[in-house]
């Protein structure tokens, strides 16, 4: 029975100093992932835990005309409480599909994005929305696209001795969104995955296109996304058909979940977003 050392850093700098001294320290905000994975009466934690739930800097919310910024310890309920019309609709829907209201009361945005075990439900959404994350370590801080938190083998990645402090979400309302969750409700497991496809279409032209499928790994083809930029949606569009086939082919090579499921998802997504042209 391991007894852990619990720390309560009062600020981000304190937390970073602790991480520097004890790199094995785990940061705990809501704790749903770590506690939800254990069934014994006594929770087993790593040797050192830093409880960051109450650090004020990590709970701030700011808004400009172009984006919203949330502290990483903002609870999912806190995000939803902003109300309709403020949070982009697909994001609000995605948050509501996570757990239940009680889980969302303690689960945090940062916890959802920075899981080392697998990509959680909000991750593909925010990647599609080109969200950015602020990663701070002792010496510097930088903003990066959320996709940065996936390594070269498409698995979750987080830099050592660093903290995810803020998340910046562009306030772009995507009119065409296709979203499906695989693996049922309940705590994400190795067969859970989320498929998100978003397209901004203006005057029958694709202004932007994103498709991300993530679970224990992530699947995304940025070249295909770029290839669809400014393409017109016409009947029997070759570009769309090619893009779809490319996705299906590359996915079967990736070895990530069953190709049949992905194939159906992609087909459904394209039909939903681009209609009869498929």
């Amino acid at each position, binding site marked *: *029975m391991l007894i852990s050392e619990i720390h309560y850093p009062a600020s981000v700098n304190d937390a970073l100093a602790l991480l520097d001294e004890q790199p094995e320290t785990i940061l705990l905000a809501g704790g749903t992932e770590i506690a*939800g*994975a*254990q*069934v*014994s*009466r*006594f929770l087993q934690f790593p040797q050192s835990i830093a409880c960051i739930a109450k650090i004020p800097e990590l709970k701030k919310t700011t808004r400009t005309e172009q984006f919203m910024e949330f502290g990483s310890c903002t609870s999912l309920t806190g995000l939803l409480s902003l109300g309709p019309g403020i949070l982009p609709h697909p994001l609000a829907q995605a948050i509501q599909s996570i757990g*239940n209201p009680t889980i969302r009361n303690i689960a945090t945005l940062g916890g959802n994005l920075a899981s080392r075990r697998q990509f959680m439900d909000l991750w593909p959404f925010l990647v599609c929305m080109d969200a950015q994350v602020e990663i701070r370590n002792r010496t510097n801080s930088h903003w990066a696209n959320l996709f940065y938190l996936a390594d070269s083998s498409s698995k979750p990645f987080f830099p050592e001795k660093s903290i995810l402090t803020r998340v910046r979400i562009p306030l772009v309302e995507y009119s065409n969104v296709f979203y*499906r969750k*695989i693996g*049922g*409700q*309940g*705590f994400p*497991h190795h067969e859970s995955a989320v498929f998100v496809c978003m397209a901004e279409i203006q005057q029958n032209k694709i202004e932007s296109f994103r498709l991300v499928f993530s679970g224990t790994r992530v699947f995304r083809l940025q070249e295909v996304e770029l290839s669809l930029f400014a393409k017109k949606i016409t009947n029997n569009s070759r570009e769309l058909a090619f893009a779809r086939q490319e996705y299906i082919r590359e996915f079967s090579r990736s070895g990530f979940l*069953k190709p*049949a*499921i992905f194939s*159906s*998802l992609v087909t*459904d997504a394209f039909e939903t977003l681009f209609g009869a042209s498929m």
Partner: protein
Amino acid sequence: MSSMKPGEQLPILTLLEVRDMLFASTIRSTVAYAKEFSVQRSQLPFGYRMILPEDMVKDGMSLEFSDGIPLFATDTIRYRGEPLGLIVGPDPVLCDNLSLNVKVAYRESEPNFSWTTFPSSRIAARKRIRIGKTEVSTPKGISDQQWETTTHWTGSFDHEYSEPSSALAVWEYDKLVIYCASQWPNHVRSSISEVLKVPQKDILIRPTDLGQSIEGRIWFPSLIACHAACAARLCNKPVKILYTRGEDYCFAPKQARSCISISSLSDQQGRLASLDIRLVINIGAYNPLAEELLDHAVLSLLGIYACPVVSIDAFAVQSNVIPLGALGNLGSIHGFFALDAHLNHLARKCQKSPAEIKAINMIAKGMTVHGDVQVSSVIPFSKIQQKLEIMADFQRKHASYEVIRKRDPASRKGIIRGIAGSFGYLTGDAFLNIPEKNRYSVEVQLEKDLTIVIKTEAAISSENARLMWKKTVSEILSLPERSIHVIQESVHSNSRCGPMVVSRGVFAINKLIERSCRALQKKRFRETLPLTVKSQMQCNPSIQWTEDGLSGKAFDAASWCGTIIELEVDAITGQVKPLTIWMAVDAGRIINKPVAESSLRAQAVNALRLCLLDDVVPETLDSSSYLAKKRLPFNEIPDIVIEFMDSDRTSALGIGELPFATIPSAYYGALSQALGLNLPSIPASPHDVMRIWEAT
């Protein structure tokens, strides 16, 4: 020596504490089968103690109780997780930790997980029924090619009881007091008496809140109570055993799995001429109710369809997994499901609707069936069928979904729908093969202040049962329900009350209460208060097993139910979502309609869980399978529409298990229609659906 006062609630064992109480955690085997093993005693912190079978033997205790159920493994390990001993101490967390780290050396053998083929040494119970001519001569007009065979499986299932398995044993002066939640408190007492070699009069069973039991708390609580009692005796202090939910999931009994092969011979119209059935139920390492399970499964296979020649070979087979037993309806669920699925298959072959095939084969009043069973009452099949078809707009929907499916059978896009129905029944004829298992008693006291106190040793598992009994008293004695109290007594007398299984127990108690109240009514204005009337009865089944099948009168006291389920399947994920459940019920006199409806709905949700959620694989249960366990959240429960049919019958009949008799078959039929193929088993998870689709 009543444990409770009127108005008081039964305690919840998880919260119960007594002074100087110790906790016990179970040392468990980590292998499924070993012919030899030894547990290493290790140094434990001060205040902690390891209890092994040899300690019990030294103290003069027995290591087995009724029906040969072993308290702990002694020479052979029969399943992974089998109890080997206990660690007792003041901190439950440390006890858990210590029990996990106990070193055990095994001489491991290859476990027997297979159960559809088996040597006779693994047969725990068997039943052979031969009705009609045993030489299967092909009737006129039917060729051998018209034999149809289907094989169906029901998976194992875990019901999440209101509380994990637990017991508290404490010596109060000269009596050993056991707190536990059991459907059969008398069994707890007799088991402890056998193990501790203590007279039953020195053992007091104080009931705690049972919550929802669904037949899974008949004998297993006795095992836990024996563990606690042994530990309390050896440590000379109160001992509580409280499984964690994860532990309960992995090591408490689950529903038995079954494999049923049905071969039938029928004419062109689908009229059954001969049935040949092989039923195998996997009961895990052991199950003291194996015979009862088999009886009920076979009875449900004989069912309500007339067939002149029936041959059934039924086996309860042991395997090296946790004990597997009954859940809803004591084993009947297996037979109801398989028979209905087979008839659905026949309907497809004959190009008729399942309802037509059932109507053709349905038994009717005046018939003699299943050997020598007189059908002395009307079977309300067509009445219920008609009602349901109107409620659910069945014909139109069924035809539409058939057309859509047939138009493009290979297409699996978007959402696909299916709708199907089933018809079933519930009788009070629970076969329990020892007379004392069928005995109930009740004491009704009319106090001076005109309050009524009903006392019974029978386990009360739901508030709905209490409400029904109160209503019965209120109607007979014209007293307000708030002045009527129901108390579950501690087991201390020689009344030997049987288990509360199926709805049978609830309605047996209701009959006794009626009888007692009528007796009170006669005395009420002639004798001074308080007045007490005691009643007892033995519920003997109205039908008996004979060499040629069954004999007696059946279905007089049966309640009937038709169910239609409409569902949709997500073609991408295989996720099944039930949309609506319609139920039409003929259950005689309904004592309390809102309570009856509420009870049926709650049980319908439980029956639906059986179909929707993942098959529990007893061979590989562990904490990760507990965490991955699917649940049916409140916001995914479909609409459940219930209608009670008008009935001429004046007696009140059990209804609680009717959903288990009909929902699995209706669900299966609807899913089969949606997928366009017959599923081999329930439950059918999204995985199973996708796998079956991909295979075709």
